[in-house]
């Protein structure tokens, strides 16, 4: 390893340069969100705004009264999808790992096969089914079809199969039924797997673009991602507003990432090597 030591400073420089490449777009957007339009148009290329202002943030909420609504729509959808997935995927994963019932292996292999189905195949038929149900422009149009995901059912099954059986056996003797056992003993011990799932599902739902684009035509039902796109269309070249709106959309996902980032690696390496 001695030969590497000589090059260590060079590697630090490389890492630093790439960190800059990663950060600059974000910082540049953040900076624009605090600049006034004249400052942006005059083409001043400085990162620190000359006259930092919160006007852009005030204006987007005033000019686009639905902006707050879009934020709440996104939050409600992302939180519901996350909650349902945690519950349903864990229940199914547990049943597949621990309960013997007729058809269980058929179900397991079906779920393995479903992981491989690309989402593009079901876009159009799902749209027609949701339309037939009369769900267009409703929260359930996005929440219900996303409420369980094969990938995470498989992940939970793999987690529960390596779970120490003794705990469950002891509680079973105490007279807890399967349901009581699952909620009182198994779920509380599955926290690391649940945390990894939470992050991926929340991010996926919060950032989802195609589904709300196709299912929500009523402006008040837009999510932030779709709202942001229409907002861009209306305020084209008002980059100060567009960047302020982008910053608002990024903050929740960023906070979750910073607080839970150790679970991220765990989850990626899991889904990456399955």
């Amino acid at each position, binding site marked *: *390893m001695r*030969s*590497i030591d000589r090059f*260590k400073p060079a*590697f630090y420089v490389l*890492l630093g340069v790439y960190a800059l*490449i*990663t950060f*600059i*777009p*974000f910082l*540049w957007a953040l900076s*624009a969100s605090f600049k006034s339009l004249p400052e942006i148009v005059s*083409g001043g*290329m400085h990162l620190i705004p000359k006259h930092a202002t919160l006007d852009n943030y005030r204006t987007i909420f005033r000019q686009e009264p639905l902006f707050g609504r879009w934020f709440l729509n996104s939050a409600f959808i992302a939180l519901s999808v996350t909650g349902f997935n945690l519950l*349903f995927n864990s*229940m*199914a994963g547990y*049943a*597949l790992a621990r*309960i013997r*019932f*007729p058809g269980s292996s058929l179900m397991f292999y079906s779920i393995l096969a*479903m992981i491989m189905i690309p*989402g593009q*195949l079901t*876009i*159009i*038929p799902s*749209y027609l*089914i949701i339309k037939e149900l009369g769900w267009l422009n409703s929260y359930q149009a996005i929440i*219900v079809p996303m*409420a*369980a995901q*094969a990938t995470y059912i498989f992940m939970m099954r793999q987690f529960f199969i390596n779970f120490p059986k003794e705990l469950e056996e002891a509680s079973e003797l105490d007279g807890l039924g*399967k349901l009581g056992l699952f909620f009182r003993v198994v779920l509380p011990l599955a926290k690391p797997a649940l945390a990894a799932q939470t992050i991926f599902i929340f991010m996926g739902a*919060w*950032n989802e*673009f*195609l589904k709300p*684009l196709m299912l929500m035509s009523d402006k008040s039902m837009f999510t*932030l*991602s779709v709202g*942001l*796109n229409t907002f861009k*269309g209306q305020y084209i*070249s008002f980059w100060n507003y*567009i*960047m302020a709106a*982008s910053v608002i*959309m*990024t903050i929740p*996902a*960023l906070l979750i*990432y910073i607080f839970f980032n150790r679970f*991220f*690696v765990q989850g*990626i*390496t899991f889904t990456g*090597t399955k």
Partner: protein
Amino acid sequence: MAKSHSKTKFRDALSGYSFMSPVIVILGCFLLLPIAYAIFLSLHKVNLLGTVSYKFAGSANFERMIDDPRLWIALRNTAKYALIVVPSQTVLALALASILNMQLRYRNFFRIAFYLPTVTSSAVLVLIFMWIYNSNGLLNYLLELVGLPTYNWLGDPSVALLGIMIMNVWSTAPLFMVIYLAALQDIPRNLYEAADIDGANAWQKFRSITLPQLKPVTFYVIVMGIIGTFQLFDQSYIFSAGSGGPNNATLTMVLLIYQYAFKNLDMGYASALAFLLAVVIMLITLVQRLLFKEEKLN
């Protein structure tokens, strides 16, 4: 005794099915049923006006593809995109992961920082890059500063796709970096120790130990990259306001399917395209799984 045994069996079956029931309903209605429906749609001409009606069309939707110039443009864009993006992001991911895998300080900070673009919404990323790409934007300013030619990145068909490529290499390489990092940590230490005894230098070790050991992961990363290319939608939709322009330069397969389905309301043909895309993606996945399994057994 026999009675209580069958009773437990019955109770197990009951709890098994009740635990599975939400998933059976959801995946049944919104995954299995749509798959069957997709196949049905792709074989029919669908009329959406008034009450939905279907007319059997046999393979007409599939035959139409051969003469569809926009499909060929989308495929060419996809191929161009894959040829540049997949190798670049794979090499970048491997380089970053290899550096992070050395015992450097602050490596955790760098890992967390590099991963940031991957958790940011594609809608936001596209807007940030459009802001950087606009004619008076940061990128042109920097290009001018070092004496390179500037472009109208958003409106010039010859560079619009390149703009999306740069953005996507930047935003997806970190995901593969994390996968590589995990794989690098799984390489047995004693291989390197043996090479140290033989007096191998760092580059020799990288070439004759690290790279061969990473072969399955590299294959996985490349396949995932190619599949991601086929699935590209958000970026080109937002970039071009749904048109795939300028002059079809950013038209992708999924955007084409979206346009046929929701702009032209031609659900039958759009479903046939989606069906074909899905088959291609599944074949690629299947090949990867089979080869990967073999690697594991060896």
